[in-house]
C-alpha cells in the first residue's frame, strides 16, 4: 500500500466528534439520531464489522423535554436480584437523581442488543449542563441538528415586539380590559 493510499484510508476512517444540544429535545426521538452517529450509520462506508462509529458529546441533558405527562407516567425498572428487589423509578425521580441517565438509557435501548453495544456506548459523553471539559470540547468539529425547535418563552420576547405582533383576535366593543 502506497503512502498516499494509506493516508487516504486514514482520512476515510477518521473519527469525527459531534456535539448535540439536548435542550428541549425528546430523548427517545433524539436517541434515534444520536444512535446513527454513534454506530456510523450516517456514513456511506458503513459496514457492521468495520469500526466507523463517531463520538457524540451530549450537552444540556438536564433540559430535555418529555412529551405530555411522561415525566410522571414513564417508569424505569430495576431489580437487585434478591427477592423483593424490584423497584420502579418514575422518570422525574430518575432525572432528579441523575440528569444524564434518561438520555443514556434511551440511546442504549435504541441500539440492538449485541456485543458491540457497550463498546459503542463508550463513545458517548453526556453532560448535564453547558460546561464540558476542555479536552473533550476541543475535539468537537461538528454539531448534530436538533429535532425540535427550542421554544421561546413569552417573557423572553421584548415587550414592544409582543405589542407590534399582528393580532388575530379583537375584543368586542363593550369589553372591559383586564
Amino acid at each position, binding site marked *: 500500500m502506497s503512502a498516499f493510499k494509506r493516508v487516504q484510508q486514514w482520512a476515510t476512517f477518521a473519527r469525527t466528534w459531534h456535539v448535540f444540544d439536548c435542550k428541549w429535545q425528546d430523548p427517545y426521538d433524539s436517541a434515534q439520531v444520536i444512535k446513527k452517529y454513534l454506530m456510523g450509520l*450516517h456514513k*456511506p462506508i458503513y459496514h457492521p464489522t468495520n469500526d466507523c462509529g463517531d463520538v457524540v458529546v451530549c450537552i444540556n441533558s438536564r433540559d430535555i423535554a418529555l412529551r405530555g405527562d411522561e415525566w410522571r407516567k414513564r417508569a424505569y425498572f430495576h431489580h437487585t436480584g434478591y427477592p423483593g428487589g424490584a423497584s420502579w423509578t418514575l422518570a422525574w425521580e430518575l432525572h432528579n437523581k441523575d440528569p444524564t441517565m434518561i438520555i443514556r438509557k434511551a440511546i442504549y435501548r435504541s441500539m440492538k442488543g449485541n456485543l458491540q453495544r457497550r463498546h459503542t456506548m463508550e463513545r458517548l459523553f453526556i453532560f448535564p449542563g453547558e460546561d464540558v471539559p476542555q479536552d473533550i470540547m476541543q475535539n468537537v468539529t461538528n454539531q448534530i441538528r436538533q429535532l425540535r425547535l427550542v421554544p421561546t418563552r413569552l417573557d423572553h420576547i421584548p415587550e414592544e415586539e409582543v405589542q407590534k405582533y399582528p393580532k388575530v383576535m379583537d375584543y368586542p366593543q363593550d369589553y372591559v380590559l383586564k
Partner: protein
Amino acid sequence: MVFLSIANWVRSRGPDEIWRKRRVFKLAAHYIGRRRNCYSVAVRNVHRALVYATKARQLKKQDMIDLWNTRITAACEQHNITYYTLKEGLDRSNIMLDRKSLSDLAAWEPRTFECLAAVAKQKIDYDGFIDGTDRKQPTGVNLNLKDVMLEAWLKENKK
C-alpha cells in the same frame, strides 16, 4: 412364498455404504472432534449446515440489500434528500441505477453521487412531486421577512 433373504437385507446397506458416508465426511471435513469423525454425529451436523446454507442463499441477498439501503440513506442525508425521493427522481429522469451501483458511487465516487442527488431533486422539483417526508423544505430559522415579502410583492406585480 418364503422370503429368506429379507433378513439379510436389514443389515446390508449395499456395497456403496463407505462411499455414501464418505460424501458426508467430506462435507464435515472442517469440523472438530466427533463431529467430523463419527458418522452419526457428522451427518446430523452436515444436514443442519446444508439447511443453513440453503436459507443463507436468500439471506445473503437480503443482507446485501439492507446494507446498500443503509449506505444510500446515509449518503442521501448529506445531500438533504430521502432515499425514496432520490429513487423517484432518478426513475423519472430515466437513470436506472440499482442499489449496488448507487451505494458504490456514494462511497467511491462521492461527487458523482452528489450530482445524481441534485438531478433527482431538480426533476422532482420540475414535476412538482413531493412526498410526505420531503415536504419539510428548508425554512431557515432566521427567516428574513424583507426578502420573503419582496418575492411575494414581485410575484404580485407580475400578475
